[in-house]
């Protein structure tokens, strides 16, 4: 795929405000601490330190993903004894109790989405760093998907909140949140920040820099 050569704002020496879209030409003297002439938001050519920030946040999220899945998410104390549940055993419980659509929803939102999101961000950051010209449209779509779907991983945190609040029948049954809840919440927040710090325009910049004839076709 070789997109039509086109002029980007960066090539034209223009900055676009990420809040209101106003185009502005930076003064020749310097280009730090600029503000949008229309809405006064900070102006950057690209999000500052975009890749480094994304890498740091994704790495932190990947590390915390381990305890989030291995430690107990909740502890149920009832007349029958005490039971520790991880995210996966919660999914298994839902599946076995017959509500397999919900089991699928929770599995997807709590296990698949964070995992795929971390992998997608690694791929996006790595390919942007390599200045790859490959499949920019598909990578932009992947980025949009990551941004859209990330929030749904908060599902398990909310489930725990309601379970802990409702099941407080002293003597009969109580539910407490486990340490995995903190780790899991951190994974969701870190991956959301990672997606926000990634600048999708970095996907397109190598295309503007390479003349169409010299674009690699890997």
């Amino acid at each position, binding site marked *: 795929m070789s997109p*039509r050569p*086109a*002029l*980007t*704002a960066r090539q034209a020496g*223009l*900055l*676009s405000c990420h*809040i*209101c*879209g*106003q*185009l502005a*030409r930076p*003064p020749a003297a*310097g280009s730090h*601490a*600029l503000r949008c*002439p*229309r*809405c*006064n*938001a900070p102006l950057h050519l690209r999000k500052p330190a975009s890749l480094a920030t994304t890498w740091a946040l994704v790495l932190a999220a990947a590390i915390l993903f381990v305890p989030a899945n291995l430690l107990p998410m909740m502890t149920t104390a009832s007349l029958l004894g005490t039971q520790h549940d991880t995210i996966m055993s919660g999914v298994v419980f839902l599946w076995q109790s017959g*509500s397999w659509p*919900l089991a699928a*929803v*929770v599995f997807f939102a709590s296990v698949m989405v964070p995992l795929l999101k971390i992998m997608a961000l690694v791929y996006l950051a790595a390919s942007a760093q390599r200045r790859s010209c490959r499949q*920019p*449209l598909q990578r*932009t779509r992947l*980025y*949009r998907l990551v941004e859209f779907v990330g*929030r*749904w991983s*908060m*599902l398990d*945190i*909310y*489930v*725990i*909140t*309601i*379970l*802990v*609040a*409702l*099941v407080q*029948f002293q003597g*009969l*049954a109580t539910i407490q*949140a486990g340490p995995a809840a903190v780790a899991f*919440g951190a994974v969701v*927040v870190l991956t*959301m920040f990672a997606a*926000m710090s990634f600048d*999708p*325009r970095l*996907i*397109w*910049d190598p295309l503007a820099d390479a003349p169409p004839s010299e674009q690699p076709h890997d």
Partner: protein
Amino acid sequence: MLAPDAHPLLPADLIACHECDLLQREPALAPGETARCTRCGALLARNPPDSIDRSLALACTAAVLYLIANLYPLVGLEMQGRRVEVTLAGALHILWHDGMGPVAALVGVTALLFPVLELLMILAVLVPLRLGRASPRLAPFFRLVRSVQPWGMVEVFLLGMLVSLVKLSHLATVILGTAFWAMAALIVVLTLAGRAFDPRLLWQTPGQTP
């Protein structure tokens, strides 16, 4: 601090795609139409009909629904004659005293604080616009709306409530409270309000008519 030129020489309809940086002309939009980037397909602009009136009406509705959703119990359980009902604030209180401070804070911010902050900021922008007092001073409020938006997760919270109720339904009778339905309606109304609002109205100079 250096102020860049507003650049009066650039054509007013020249815009850069916020996702791929392509320079292009923004087409004139009929009411209800949207403009997308010719290269990457990102949404560039929308022209919702009756933008200010509709989004203001929806934002006011959302404010009422938000109050109901937080004052009344969300969900409840009935077990062996004992009945438990919780509000959102009540649930956070229990979680906090359970030693889960960070989790309670995360839930409080995403399900309680940021949705209302978003709503107040939308109203702070819309009311002056409706009164015909568009001014650049509204810009900071709009920026706040934009930065807070991704963190308001009422719809995820609603799904979370449903999942937890299904988990409990085999051991107790489950009650859906007034606030549950108010919250479901709030999600619909907030989404519609967001779609009805045209941010370009903010940047129009007072003399200009849409």
